[in-house]
């Protein structure tokens, strides 16, 4: 049987996810532009995605190869997006 996070852990995860979403929205509303704003939003997206993958999906307890596969996808996609924004800003 696969392991799964406890309820308290899920609750904490939800709170952090909501706060991070609020922060992303605030950056957009405050007119955040440029590399710093993009970097901050990407980092928030990375944190949120990691929380969903580890806590909600329950991948915190799976074998390392599955974690690395998911982390690889996330880092590749966010990294290429960051590169594209860097190219666009140049």
């Amino acid at each position, binding site marked *: 049987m696969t392991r799964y996070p406890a309820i308290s852990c899920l609750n904490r995860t939800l709170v952090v996810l909501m706060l991070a979403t609020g922060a992303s*929205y605030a950056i957009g509303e405050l007119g955040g532009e440029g590399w710093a704003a993009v970097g901050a939003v990407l980092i928030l997206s990375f944190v949120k995605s990691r929380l969903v993958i580890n806590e909600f*999906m329950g991948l915190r307890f799976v074998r390392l190869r599955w974690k690395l596969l998911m982390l690889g996808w996330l880092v590749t996609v966010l990294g290429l997006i960051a590169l594209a924004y860097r190219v666009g*800003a140049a």
Partner: protein
Amino acid sequence: MNVFPGPPSVKPRGGPPHACVVPPFWAVESRTTFRLRALAIGAHTRTLPCAPLGPLVLDQVRRAACRLSWHRVLAAAAPLKSPVLPDPASAALPDSHDAAAAAPEASHEGDLPGDLAIWIFIFAELLAFGVFFVSYAFTRAKNVALFNEMQLTLDREAGALNTVVLLLASYFVARAVNAIKRDRSQTSARWLAAGIACGAGFLVVKLFEYHAKFSIGINLSTNTFYMFYISLTFFHFMHVILGMVILAAVLLKTRRGGYSAADHHGMDTGASYWHMVDLVWLILFPLVYVMR
């Protein structure tokens, strides 16, 4: 040399190890089925080169089988339709009643939650979405002014609201899985229903957004930004619908008592897909609505 060391749980507990009769089926069967059987009795197979095996290894496997509860061997061997003789002496071992339940736990520990097939599908979907996201980002790099201007015409509040709704949906589904692991079917069904309701909420908000755009004549050919916006969000929209259909099927089975703490593989499968839909939106929202 001990080429077949058993785990601590198969250490001798007294009595002659050869008191039971275990048929030597592993001497003739394939390597795969042998490994399955060895796994079932808690023995390590990594050191074994292939089947058939030498007499020393066979003897150790036989001894391990005798010391363990035969229920566990029977439970694992049943799908393979091979004869396994009972060991009356081992029935008195303390772990004999938990052995059948422990067997699947040992084999699934560390595995992905749900069916492997859905994970192949999930990784394929993530790859497709990833290509979409990167295409959007690099196309934007060539049309920064257009994308920045068009981004201001989007309803960011609606996007943020949908993010909150999807996060809540994922949380509810995670709670549903948590509840079923504690054998609370009805509670689990309620969490699932809440998750589906959130999914419906997402669709309603998105439909309002689409209506606002389509009513002023915006479509796929308006410009490159809207081509990406409509394609990406509609692709995700369809995934939300599919996720809701899967969750609805899981909900129906949960209400009928089809899942339990011991068997909730199907719910894990459906939940994993739903979380993937949420995960994709967590990148889509900042990419399309926020980042400038």
